[in-house]
């Protein structure tokens, strides 16, 4: 616990040194708002009849929720890990009796804490511009959404960690991460709610981890969830699959570490 507390506080102090950068990163995550404008136009051209499966209000709440979920599930392990491995900084972390991935986890959580006020500001601004979308989730709904966001972050963090560990083999793992970005963008529900996808695509997407990274927590938060138990079960399954995968990859990969640049 003490390690967690100290890691978080030092990483938080570090992130605060870069608060302007984090504010810009937060601003750069407004894709859901752009998509909201786009889908609202599509809905309006259809007479606002909710042909997309969601009415205008639901669309607004969904994309606002997607924005919030995205802000607290972003993972950048691949980038940080690859740079640390190539520059030799990973060596210091490997020489301490603490798994290096804990440091990255601490950095992510600290960054999320730094993002919090900027996200709150943007949410406030959104409500100011669209006052009819204001809603307050129930306590149970908020708790479930928080849990889903945390699990979504865990899936994203583990998935990225698995790719990051491939640095031990390829040295350019972020290229692989790029490959995953496209399915993430479209299947996660970031650019469109899953309801607008053809049923076959939606069914296929549900076999991937992507809808659980944005869509499911966003649906929970916006009060329009599909199967809650099914969603949580799928998330738990993905975490249960990814955890041992990361452990196995780490064990095999670290043998190949050549401490280059160090």
């Amino acid at each position, binding site marked *: 616990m003490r390690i967690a507390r100290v890691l978080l506080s030092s990483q938080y102090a570090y992130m605060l040194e870069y608060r302007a950068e984090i504010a810009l990163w937060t601003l750069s995550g407004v894709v859901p708002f752009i998509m909201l404008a786009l889908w609202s136009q599509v809905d309006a051209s259809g007479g606002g009849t909710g042909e997309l499966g969601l009415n205008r209000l639901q669309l607004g709440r969904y994309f606002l929720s997607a924005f919030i979920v995205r802000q607290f599930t972003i993972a950048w392990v691949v980038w940080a890990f690859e740079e640390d491995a190539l520059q*030799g900084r990973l*060596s210091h972390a490997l*020489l*301490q009796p603490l798994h290096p991935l804990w440091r990255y986890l601490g950095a992510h959580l600290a960054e999320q804490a730094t993002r919090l006020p900027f996200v709150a500001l943007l949410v406030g601004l959104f409500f100011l511009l669209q006052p009819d979308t204001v809603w307050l989730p129930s306590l149970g709904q908020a708790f479930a959404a928080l849990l889903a966001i945390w699990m979504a972050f865990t899936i994203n963090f583990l998935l990225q960690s698995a790719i990051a560990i491939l640095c031990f083999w390829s040295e350019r793992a972020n290229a692989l991460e790029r490959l995953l970005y496209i399915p993430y963008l479209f299947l996660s529900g970031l650019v469109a709610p899953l309801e607008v996808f053809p049923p076959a695509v939606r069914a296929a997407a549900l076999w991937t981890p992507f809808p659980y990274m944005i869509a499911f927590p966003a649906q929970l938060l916006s009060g329009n969830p599909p199967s809650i138990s099914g969603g949580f079960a799928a998330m738990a399954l993905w975490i249960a699959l990814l955890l041992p995968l990361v452990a196995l990859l780490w064990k095999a990969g670290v043998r190949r570490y050549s401490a280059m640049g160090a």
Partner: protein
Amino acid sequence: MPIVCAERLSKTYRVAQKQPGLGGTLRHFFWRRSRLVEAVRDLSFSIEPGEMVGFLGANGAGKTTTLKMLSGLVYPSGGNLLVAGHSPQRRQASFLRSITLVMGQKQQLIWDLPPLDSFRVNAAVYGLDDTEAKRRINELAEMLELGEELTRPVRKLSLGERMKAELLAALLHRPSLLFLDEPTLGLDVNAQARVRTFLADYNRRHGATVLLTSHYMADITALCPRVLLIHQGGLFYDGSLEALTQRLSPCRLVRLELKTPLPASAFSSYGQVEAIDGREVKLLIARDQLTGAVARLLGDLEVLDLEVADPPIEDVIGQLFQKGVVQ
């Protein structure tokens, strides 16, 4: 019982090969070629607890790779290795708590925060409570002559201050085995001297074992009674620095100050003339002829001052590596 025991240690890397230019780049893109580089081969040595050992060798001789294997960063390709009773590559927590690796050109301190923040993290990672951590930080800071620098962001520190803070971070958990790779690299003469004094002091206080690589021979001569010289990945010499100098340089350097200048030809019967600068002459004289030659010099010439020394170890080692192949 040795604290470090390496038997026939070897490490082979696969290294990509690329020719320069556009053609080379295109060929490299379609047909990757690589070759195996034997960074360390059949290296055997042992170190007793509390020893301070210098690790010498030219660039690429395999010093850093060996240190990385000893500290568990890199898996050996072959041989046996036992460090502080552990197989380093398993990186067990008890092993990691007993060692440290300081790399002069790499830093572990968080760049934008004061060193104290990094020390807090290290203290937590190594399970030191706040009181003990504070006590150790104060003790090491005093030994390293660090004060208000510890509250300044690392990026605002000078190279020397940063290196001292790095040392503090690396030694906070009080390791009994120190692997130091160029710990004085880039430091000015005064900072180098302070780091040397600190390391000697740390070794004395805590009985720590130190294995040190440095291109600054002053580090080795000041700290290491024993040196390991590796060449092309293999062990070339293991013993005292003095004996190494004798082995590599069969001559001693005799500096003379004469009453009047003389031509070089006047010294040919005493030894090899190294340099002549007016009344000052430097001669290289074979060790077994030294006594006789000095007696004759004093008898034959008007000598105001005479000094006998070993040639600088840098020159001796430098000549050795320049020759390429060690005899």
